[in-house]
């Protein structure tokens, strides 16, 4: 059976990863057990590939449960199409974003033809922010999503319709912008000043790791992560942290570049991703490699259904996803009850 491009890549990298891990395992004391385990994993991955194709035809929903373990393992050690150690991945990603921080917004506009603004608008409208909300925007360095949320809450339109009792709640609104990279946060703070949102107490800039959030349990009404979850080392840790900080009734929303399946458009999109974007990155930002990483990391990220099942596994209910532009971008949402 003809395997898709994505599956070929995952298959070969899975094999390489297992071979790469078996070698150092020989140094370890529990060598035989590890070797068996890793061999088993590689067999499982191969089997999983063929079983998944069968299952897709049968339309089984149980299968994604087995996929996460192997996919996560490969996600944690993938930097685009290259294989790296888990510890190195966050360092490498950090370097990428330090380099692109100053041109981040211009490049976003160029690569998506301005569409990213609409996607972020849609994300915020799905969130339905309200006055007095405590919101956490993770990997939101340059502040796009946070600004939109704040402007929605403070909009004159909304205030005209509102009850006067809610005015005091307005002051309690807190939007936390968390990012692992201080350069991105600095760009965000500057932009906030320009937009006139700098002096409001409502925006709080926090430097932190999405896998180890410093916020208290059950403290946030909303959690968004826009174009960030692709870059983390351990997706399931991020999802678990998101579940932890959300209150009962809180919502998790993730905007991310995702997989396109429609036949002709897929080819067009692949051509655009691999041939056009790195060149634009070279011309505008002088940095081809970062944008090569970007497009490769999109391909390595789990597809919509698998990611949705991962969100459900973290404990969220009412897990849904909505595709835009045929799957180029998807917004996944979940509810904590």
């Amino acid at each position: 059976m003809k395997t898709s491009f994505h599956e070929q890549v995952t298959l070969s990298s899975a094999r390489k990863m297992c071979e790469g891990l078996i070698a150092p395992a020989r140094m370890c004391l529990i060598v035989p057990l590890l070797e068996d385990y890793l061999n088993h994993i590689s067999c499982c991955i191969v089997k999983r590939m063929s079983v998944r194709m069968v299952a897709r035809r049968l339309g089984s929903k149980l299968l994604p449960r087995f996929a996460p373990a192997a996919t996560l393992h490969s996600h944690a050690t993938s930097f685009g199409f290259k294989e790296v150690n888990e510890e190195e991945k966050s360092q490498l990603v950090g370097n990428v974003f330090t380099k692109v921080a100053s041109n981040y917004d211009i490049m976003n506009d160029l690569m998506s033809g301005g569409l990213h603004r609409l996607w972020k608008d849609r994300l915020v409208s799905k969130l339905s922010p309200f006055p007095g909300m405590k919101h956490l925007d993770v990997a939101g360095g340059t502040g796009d999503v946070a600004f939109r949320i704040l402007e929605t809450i403070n909009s004159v339109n909304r205030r005209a319709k509102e009850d006067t009792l809610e005015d005091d709640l307005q002051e309690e609104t807190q939007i936390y912008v968390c990012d692992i990279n201080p350069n991105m946060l600095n760009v965000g703070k500057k932009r906030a000043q320009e937009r006139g949102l700098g002096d409001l107490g409502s925006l709080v800039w926090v430097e932190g790791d999405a896998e180890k959030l410093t916020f208290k349990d059950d403290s946030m009404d909303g959690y968004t992560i826009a174009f960030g979850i692709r870059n983390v080392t351990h997706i399931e840790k991020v999802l678990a942290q998101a579940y932890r900080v959300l209150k009962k009734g809180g919502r998790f929303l993730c905007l991310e570049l995702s997989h396109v399946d429609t036949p002709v458009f897929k080819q067009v999109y692949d051509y655009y991703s691999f041939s056009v974007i790195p060149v634009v990155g070279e011309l505008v930002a002088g940095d081809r490699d970062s944008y090569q990483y970007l497009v490769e990391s999109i391909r390595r990220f789990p597809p919509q259904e698998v990611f949705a099942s991962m969100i459900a596994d973290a404990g969220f209910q009412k897990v849904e996803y909505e595709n835009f532009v045929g799957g180029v971008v998807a917004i996944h949402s979940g509810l904590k009850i």
Partner: protein
Amino acid sequence: MHRSAAKRLLHSSFFYANQTSPIRTIAAPRFRFRFLASTTPEPNDFNTRTSSSSTLGDRPSHTSTTSTPRANYEEEQARVLAASLHHVIRLGWTEAAMIAGARDVRVSPSIVGAIPRKEAALVEYFMDECLQKLIDKIDSGELQLLDLVASERIAKLIKVRLQMQAPYISKWPQALSIQAQPSNISTSFKQRAMLVDEFWHASNDEGSGVDWYLKRTVVGGIYSTTEIYMLTDNSTDFEDTWIFLKERVRDAFDLKKTFQEVKYFAEAVGAGLGSSLQGFAKKS
């Protein structure tokens, strides 16, 4: 059998109405995985959770362990909507009322964002609640419908149902406009159809064929016009509305008799014409 069908439709209509096509939902994989992983009897735990979640503000605030099963989001949604109804009189059928309701049951108001077609969900919940209350009243026998004639029974049922809307009458035009929106109209039509069906079922209707549709259309019309009349009625206890209702019901039943008479007349004329044509044909 008919009653149970209505009840089934009632419970499922609210939840199905919340599905929209371009958004794909993972249908509760959580429960499936938990059933595979744990050995605790799930249905029992679910029931105890349901009964405990019906009391407001009783939950201890501890982090959930795997032994306590989490409440279904649909139940939480229903609780939030029930609490929101208290705020409708002040805030209208709006998101603000739902946010206030969520705060009352100590759930984050973000849940309102997850409810599809927000205000419409609130209105539909209210309509379903009223239908359920009506069915309960009929079943308990407090309306004493058996003592009444068919036309009086219909009038009484419509009156009882409209009285449930009386507290919200100041904001009811907004609810009607929400129900009339294109995205909501199919659900509101279905709810009204179920309501009218219930009226006729309670008055022991034995219609069939075209008659069945005709009866429901007529009573549906009476119900809607009375509802709208009630919006501008300022008399005490809506006296004028009930007089209006009685007149309409009487007209409808008179009209039925008129239609029957017209039908017999037409048959008679047809028979007469037919025999004269036969005679004419025989002659030539």
